[in-house]
């Protein structure tokens, strides 16, 4: 089995004294693990970091084997975020959520594109938290648990959608949801489209929304909590007054 693909490094764990088992989010093959020889070398360490963009050349004797990969860095990678503590936490959270949520060796090109968009957005401090929420919503979509925000689940209307059903993930209009407002999740307008705008508290509401469905549909069935990196991200955004 042999292929070459663009990828993001999601994690790298030391294996033996000089190697590492690296988890990659590839463009066309989804999440893939590979052994990388010489990972402890001075040349390779800088880009064996979560969020680093690489070109991976993978080779395995059979498809069932854990193969080995040769990685070539593309661009500056996570080093560009070293001076931005919030973005660094966001990057770690995105890598941890993608690594925990995506099944191995299942193509999810949308997840790769969402990660790519988020990586580019980290340069825009006011924007990336909302893009992060969209990234998680995109992951849910890729995994078949996408939020259905096109019309109200109760009335079929497309106006004034402000709630989401915590059970079905479908949007609910203000009028239809008023009686159940304490039970429904709040829908931040920016998730409805680019023209939705970003108001105060919207990022927090968005993270609550995606976190609920990630826990319900993705991490819960695997008997795993949401990644600690995501919890840290929310804590740090809250401390910085950015939720």
């Amino acid at each position, binding site marked *: 089995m042999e292929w070459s693909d663009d990828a993001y490094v999601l994690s790298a764990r030391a294996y033996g004294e000089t190697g590492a088992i690296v988890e990659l989010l590839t463009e066309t093959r989804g999440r893939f693990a590979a052994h990388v020889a010489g990972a402890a070398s001075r*040349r390779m360490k*800088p*880009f064996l*970091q979560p969020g680093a963009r690489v070109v991976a050349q993978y080779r395995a004797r059979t498809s069932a084997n854990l193969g080995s990969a040769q990685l070539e860095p593309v661009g500056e*990678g996570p080093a560009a975020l*070293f001076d931005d503590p919030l973005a660094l936490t966001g990057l770690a959270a995105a890598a941890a959520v993608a690594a925990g949520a995506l099944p191995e060796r299942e193509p999810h090109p949308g997840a790769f594109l969402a990660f790519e968009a988020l990586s580019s957005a980290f340069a825009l401090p006011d924007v990336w938290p909302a893009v992060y929420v969209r990234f998680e919503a995109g992951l849910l979509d890729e995994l078949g648990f996408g939020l259905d925000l096109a019309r109200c689940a109760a009335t079929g209307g497309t106006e004034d959608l402000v709630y989401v059903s915590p059970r079905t993930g479908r949007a609910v209009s203000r009028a239809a949801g008023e009686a159940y407002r304490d039970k429904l999740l709040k829908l931040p307008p920016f998730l409805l489209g680019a023209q939705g705008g970003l108001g105060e508290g919207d990022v927090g509401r968005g993270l609550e929304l995606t976190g609920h469905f990630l826990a319900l549909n993705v991490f819960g069935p695997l008997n795993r909590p949401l990644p*600690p990196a995501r919890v840290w991200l929310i804590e740090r955004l809250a401390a910085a007054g950015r939720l």
Partner: protein
Amino acid sequence: MPASASPEIDRLIGLLAKLPGMGPRSARRAALALLKRREQLMQPLAEALSAAAEKVKPCSTCGALDTRDPCAICADPTRDRTLICVVEEVGALWAMERGGAYRGLYHVLGGLLSALDGMGPDQLRIGELTARARQGEAREAILALPATVDGQTTAHYLAERLAPSGVQVTSLARGVPVGGELDWLDDGTIAQALRARRPA
């Protein structure tokens, strides 16, 4: 399969093979070398190992390894006590000492914050560091942590935690290493070096 006829030798080989840089084959060679030079090498090594196992402990102040507590560095009156260099592990402390460019005190964290490995602030010696910054003569904390996602996340966290103590928090520069050629550097290092450029 046993490597020799004797269980004692097998145990020695098995233990040596667990050391960094050693595998079963090199452990066999090392065991043989030790057995051949029993008086000159094996006995002194056994005594040194026994003494180190018995006497070497982490310093209660900085976390470095020494036979004394406080360690030789913390007890040295010629050290600049206004500086605390924060390092991940004892190996990094030894690297700093090898250079001889630094004459202040140290603080060994015992790891890095890592969301992936579930390493939180409570598992590191961060409380001890903030206590030292509040109570001691420290004026500056130098964060000598790895230029990795975990290393820099830890550095930002420490900077926040140390801010109330009034200690100036600095970190090591990132960029072109001495003897480094641009042609061989990764894009990230070159970009960092460019951002941290200074008047020539």
